[in-house]
């Protein structure tokens, strides 16, 4: 029994350390993805044709290629341009760019779901287009997109596992290292999975609550 706990501490320590990195990568990529996605969705709203094409192309490329390939390209190709990049920022940039494409579409759908009369009513009381966006459109978009945004965050948390491939020191990176040194394959991966579950499950319950609240609004 004592041996079991000793093993748990030996393996769990590095994995917990990795969990911290997993959370950090998730939050940082989520932030990049939200800012980028919202910005792109708003630019698309302006209806400037060449910009729309560029954004549409960006969205399609990133949605239709594996995120692992995207991360590899960023990590291994940027140095050729003279920019050496650490695994952590490379992971955040890769997942953030990928998420920006996903969230651009989510925000766009959210903005389009609002009746045009909402904006007209704002302009009618003398708001500028910016005020109407800030005080009328975005608060409503936020409510509409919160559940899909939450689901994206859950998916992202688990998808961060792919950046172990560029040696970003998150849960799966440490798990693989531990397996190589201890050969405790099953035990290590079950522990790793358990850690993801502990992070993801509360988030999923939170999103579920958002969804219930939104059904109540409708």
């Amino acid at each position, binding site marked *: 029994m004592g041996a079991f706990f000793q093993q748990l501490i030996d393996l769990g320590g590095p994995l917990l350390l990795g969990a911290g990195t997993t959370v950090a990568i998730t939050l940082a990529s989520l932030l990049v993805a939200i800012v980028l996605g919202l910005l792109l969705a708003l630019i698309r709203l302006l209806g400037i044709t060449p910009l729309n094409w560029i954004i549409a192309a960006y969205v399609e490329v990133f949605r239709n290629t594996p995120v692992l390939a995207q991360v590899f390209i960023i990590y291994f190709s940027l140095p050729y341009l003279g920019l050496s990049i650490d695994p952590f920022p490379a992971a955040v940039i890769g997942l953030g760019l990928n998420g920006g494409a996903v969230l651009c579409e989510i925000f766009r759908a959210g903005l389009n779901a609002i*009746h045009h*009369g*909402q904006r*007209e*009513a*704002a*302009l*009618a*009381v*003398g*708001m*500028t*287009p910016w*005020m109407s966006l800030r*005080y*009328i459109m975005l*608060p*409503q978009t936020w*409510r509409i997109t919160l559940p899909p945004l939450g689901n994206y965050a859950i998916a992202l948390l688990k998808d961060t596992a792919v950046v172990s491939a560029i040696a970003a020191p998150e849960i799966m990176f440490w798990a693989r290292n531990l397996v190589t040194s201890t050969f405790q394959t099953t035990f290590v991966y079950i522990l790793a999975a358990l850690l993801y579950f502990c992070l993801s499950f509360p988030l999923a319950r939170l999103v579920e609550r958002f969804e219930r609240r939104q059904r109540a*609004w409708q």
Partner: protein
Amino acid sequence: MNNVLLRVEDLHKRFGDLEVLTGVNMTLDRGHKTAIIGPSGCGKSTMLRCINFMETPSAGHVFLDGELFGEKKSGDKYVRMSEKELATQRAHVGMVFQGFYLWPHLSARDNVAIGPMKVRGMDKREANELADAMLEKVHMSHKVDEYPERLSGGQQQRVAIARALAQQPKLMLFDEPTSALDPELIGEVLNVIHELANEGRSMVLVTHEIRFAREVADRVIFLHDGIVVEEGPPDRVIDNPEHERLRGFLRQIVEH
């Protein structure tokens, strides 16, 4: 002092190949009320929406209080104002829509108060007081904290009227304010509009309620195929119409 509040000059509006308005003129004196009537698709809503540049006219001009609205003169050409300048002018024109368009994320009070706060920079306490006073005017004092989804259509429209009143506008525009309402809710909204009319407010009203137009308006415009076919005081236009098309339109309305 010039008593003309609103002048619409040779207004044209085209949507692609479709000409909705083909040269409409009107003037409204301060404190007066004009009702625009006409069959569906005659351009009456479009005309109203051109007055505050919710639609940009294809040609023609709008003057509010002697000032060119929505446009600026540069040399002998007219150019559209910036959105910011336009917003400043729109703040003087209240608009009530057929579909209410209350903002669902704000309570009744906040729906009314947010305009004065953000547009005129009023502080929150002052704006809330103004909102409560305007909501009282439309007999909605008992629902100030409710959200729009919990209000009936008639109640929502009355809050929307309070929202427009809080602008302390020179002119009120009503775009078929009762057309989306269940029949039993129309009366409460018409009553409120009637009360506002009695206060001597200037208003332009697009409506299907001919009887109401007759009671409230001092001038009626009959619009057909994008032009003014007949206009004048209601007792002449509605009771003794000259044009066959207006007679036909009124007959159809009465039959329903």
